[in-house]
């Protein structure tokens, strides 16, 4: 228990002392996970629209795959992305391994099924007659889609938060494809792992608490947005 208390004190002192290393690590986390979430949202919303509005053949199979994908083991994703990005691997020419971009790719792969599966549920929960009605009233497909997204915005924002949560809290794939390199690919989760390995538990707890604070700030911001819009 003392350790957690000491960690809390250290977290506060690290945040307020303006420690450059801590800020750098926190910014890297925000940057890679923010970008990964953005990619996952673009792809996930697109796939969900396709699955719900177009009802293509094999829809249930695809949906099962995305639902299963929510439990995609991050280390497996990390290993496969790493092997693809090895300089002797198929995408080695790009020179992306051990860069922030590699982490963005791995985290986007992890977050996309989460966003897709939850967005499908969100769009399906809107009364299907609504879409037929607006189409009958002369709305274009895009207008009808936009209306449904508006109607489902509460649940869609929840999908975005879940996607961000999956990305930012991930560590196995992050270390595997990023290499945990100081000043480049060290995130709050991989920094925590390193501190624990080196036996510095207080700093490890401090990094964990800073991560929790960031998650709370980002998700809290989205929640405020979600609840305010729903009230109006």
């Amino acid at each position, binding site marked *: 228990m003392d350790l957690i208390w000491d960690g809390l004190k250290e977290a506060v002192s690290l945040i307020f002392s303006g420690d450059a290393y801590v800020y750098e690590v926190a910014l890297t986390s925000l*940057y890679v996970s923010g*970008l990964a979430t953005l990619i996952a949202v673009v792809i996930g919303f697109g796939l969900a629209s396709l699955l719900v509005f177009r009802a293509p053949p094999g829809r249930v199979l695809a949906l099962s795959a995305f639902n299963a994908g929510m439990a995609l083991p991050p280390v497996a994703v990390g290993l496969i992305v790493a092997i693809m990005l*090895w*300089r*002797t691997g198929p995408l*080695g*020419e*790009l*020179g*992306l391994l*051990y*860069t*922030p*971009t590699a982490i*963005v790719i791995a985290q986007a792969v992890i977050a996309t099924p989460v966003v897709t599966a939850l967005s499908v549920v969100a769009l399906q929960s809107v009364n299907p007659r609504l879409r037929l009605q607006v189409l009958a009233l002369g709305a274009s497909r895009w207008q009808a889609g936009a209306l449904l997204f508006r109607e489902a915005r509460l649940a869609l924002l929840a999908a975005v938060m879940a996607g961000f949560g999956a990305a930012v809290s991930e560590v196995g794939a992050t270390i595997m494809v990023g*290499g*945990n*390199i*100081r000043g*480049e690919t060290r995130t709050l989760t991989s920094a925590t792992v390193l501190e*624990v*390995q*080196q*036996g510095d538990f207080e700093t490890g707890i401090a990094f964990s608490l800073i991560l929790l604070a960031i998650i709370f700030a980002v998700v809290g911001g989205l929640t405020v947005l979600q609840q305010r819009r729903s009230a109006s």
Partner: protein
Amino acid sequence: MPRLAASIAALALCLASAAACAGDDELLLGATTSVQDPGLLDELVAAFEDDYGYDVKPIVQGSGQIIELARRGELDVIITHSPGDEQALLNDGVATGTTPVMQNFFLIAGPESDPADVAGADGLADAFARIAASGAGFVGRGDGSGTHRRELATWEAAGVDPAGEDWYRESAAGQGQSVLVANDSDVYTLVDSATFISLADRLQIVELFRDEIAPNVYSVLRLDSEQLTEINENAAAAWIEFITSPRGQTVIEEYGRDEYGVSLFEPLLLD
């Protein structure tokens, strides 16, 4: 935002021309956790980057993974402490040279009460035999690291097969964390002296036996760049030059003196 733009620009450049992202000034340095965990690696990398202007990406894993990545040409140069694996790389022609650069010692740490009387042992294998005979606990690395290899060789020399015994556990963790696991359970473990000294003020377990006969030697390996064509040969040569030079060797010798009062690694190439 500037980072996002830079990253997209870099990606676009890479897609346009493979040469743009080949990273001529980048060195992928493979090292083991027992070099990183006491903090030496950061010091060496900082000094090297200052002197030579290369951008080092240290990839730190157990020796097993480092050696496998090196075999596939995924690293430019490696530092390991697993003589058997190093010899295998030389025999297979993957490595073209190996230079011992520093050493420390393996030691057995364990409960101060020392139920197996390891302190009175006659050699490392005898100490292991005593632990096995007493049934007192032991935490092994179990991760294919250099320390794990030494541990397995010592069990064999002691004529003991610890696998499956209830006094034997594998941590499958890095060196520092593995010691902390042993400390938590108040049992014996094999650890290199650098990691042990750097953690000592957090530990209740104490040093009981030091193997002075067979030190823990770290070598830098030159990899065959003709066979592994992706290797950044110049950067690798610069690293080897640095770590074998008086400058690199002095960094090794001085590391830990201020903080722990002793050097954690003994340089082997300093006159």
